[in-house]
């Protein structure tokens, strides 16, 4: 097991109280696995992604553990976590286009970053990997402003994986890109895994169609908890959780004229995470809800590698 997350709880401090963005999340990611992490805005997917590498100022680690390659990560301790960042856990951020210091040449920034982490200047390796993503070594002599958005994104992917981290978190990496570039990024991420540059990967996204192309397994989150985790194909073709089913049926299909068949959404809205209701959090919007849903359903394995948090899923 490369990554094991157990009962992770992370809250946001706000003036009105704690927002329970992650409320007991348990899952694991195997060596070599690319896990897609999907969910709507506010489901806690980005919070989960950030929790594994760096909590921001308002986030508080309330409970649960994160274990990577047998070592417990001190995710609540910013200073202690520094030793693990970049070397074991790394990040391709959502804002990859603006992630580089605009007033430093890229090559110089990379060598300063490496030196500050006590790693040697790996010039040859850096150039080899730039080539892998289709960039010439000239970009090292450029300022970020002189590169296109897509080039900057690729540079960031190369920098983030330079120390061969065990786990790479790709946070909404394709959101700001056009469709053709999205495919290229998806292919690059898979290639990084296939060449062993990163051991395993969590791809955070709201785009199930895209994550289906990249990921081996897909995990769906709803209101701060996991709803379903399954192999990518199984989750898309045979989802078990009512939320996943409705989510997938609300996606447009190629070849269907939506004049004739209106696209169905999911009525209602997720509950407030300031004071979430007990039991299953989807039950107010769920067509299958029954009395037992007032009790929190366990995230149980219903088929090999297929976990669902729903009483009706057995």
């Amino acid at each position: 097991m490369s990554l094991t997350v157990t009962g992770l709880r992370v809250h946001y401090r706000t003036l009105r109280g704690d927002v329970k963005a992650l409320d007991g999340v348990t899952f694991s990611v195997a060596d070599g696995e690319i896990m897609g992490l999907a969910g709507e805005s506010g489901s806690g997917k980005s919070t989960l992604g950030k929790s594994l590498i760096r909590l921001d100022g308002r986030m508080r680690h309330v409970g649960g553990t994160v274990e990577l390659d047998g070592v417990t990560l001190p995710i609540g301790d910013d200073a202690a976590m520094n030793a693990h960042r970049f070397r074991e856990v790394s990040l391709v951020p959502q804002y990859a286009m603006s992630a580089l210091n605009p007033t430093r040449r890229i090559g110089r920034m990379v060598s300063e970053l490496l030196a500050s982490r006590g790693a040697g200047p790996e010039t040859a390796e850096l150039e080899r990997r730039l080539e892998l993503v289709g960039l010439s070594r000239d970009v090292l002599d450029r300022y970020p402003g002189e590169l296109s958005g897509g080039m900057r994104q690729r540079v960031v992917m190369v920098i983030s994986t330079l120390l061969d981290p065990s786990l790479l978190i790709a946070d909404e990496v394709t959101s700001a890109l056009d469709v053709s570039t999205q495919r290229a990024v998806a292919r690059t991420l898979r290639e990084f895994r296939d060449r062993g540059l990163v051991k395993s990967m969590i791809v955070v996204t709201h785009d199930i169609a895209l994550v289906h192309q990249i990921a081996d397994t897909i995990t769906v989150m709803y209101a701060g908890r996991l709803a379903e985790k399954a192999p990518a194909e199984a989750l898309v073709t045979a989802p078990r959780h009512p939320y996943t089913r409705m989510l997938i049926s609300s996606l447009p299909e190629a070849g269907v004229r939506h004049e004739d068949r209106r696209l169905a959404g999911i009525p209602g809205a997720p509950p407030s995470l300031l004071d979430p209701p007990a039991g299953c959090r989807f039950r107010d919007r769920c067509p299958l809800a029954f009395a037992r849903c007032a009790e929190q359903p366990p995230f149980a394995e219903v088929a090999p590698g297929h976990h669902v948090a729903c009483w009706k899923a057995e």
Partner: protein
Amino acid sequence: MRRYFGRKLLVYGLTFFVAVTVNWLIPRFMPGDPVQSMLSRANVSQPAAVEAMRLHYTSMFGFDQPLWRQYLNFWGALLRGDLGISIWLFPTPVTDVIVRAVPYTLGLLVPAILLSWVAGNRFGAFAARRRWLDNSVLPLGYVLTATPYMWLAILLAWALGIVAGIFPVAGAYSFAMRPELSWAFAGSLLQHWFLPFASLFLVAFGGWAIGMRNMIIYELEADYVTYLRSLGAPGRLVRRYAFRNAILPQITGLALQLGVLVAGALVTEIVFSYPGLGHLILQAVQNQDFFLLQGTFLFIVLGVLVANFVVDVAYVLVDPRTRAGMGGAA
């Protein structure tokens, strides 16, 4: 690159022309007649002699010619480096009067501008990361930067000069001394320099500190900082990058503030009777000395323009983004 500086130089040239023209016009709009005041100073009683002197002075200063002719003569003389003869200190050439005053003004201005900029930026960056400093000392910065120069100058003169008696409040050196190369004279110079310098320094310092504090807070929230921290970069590297990027708007700010600082120095000199250009302007106005007023203004305009140009060049050197914008990037 060449086109960029060519355009800049053109703008500076145009500014210079307009400013000098306005400077020439302003004294001529002043009420009163400089020749008349010279005659009354001369204290001659014979009407015939007075008339002869009036004619002599009027033709000497060129006031008998039409205004447009005077204007052209002015540019002609200016291009030959001739600023005319002072009326107040007749017959000393204006150039000599200004050259005598310039060291005092520069001696006040240059250290005040540079030290307040450097110290204010350092302090602002430092305060941004410490809550107690941010909450206690920066409000003081707001008060300082909102203070008019001469008001702070008067306050300092009163508190440290009159009440505490530590510093002298008038002149550039002791009235009992003559300028000479000696330790005693240098000490006296320094003692007289301190209060006007401090009043300029403090006001500017407050402004820079506040600006830098805000910029650093903004930069530390920037995406590249979050990314570096996510990769475990130590605070030292992050702060170095943030400081360097935060200083860029401060350089632009320096260019914008130069004029204000020069104006501040002029009034401060008047408060402390410091014999610099500000003092000259006051004397020139009181004595209707057109030529001295023109000359002093000209010098100030030149100084501000040159300093602005230096800041422009410096900005291009430190910010690669401006270079990319000029099409000079490979």
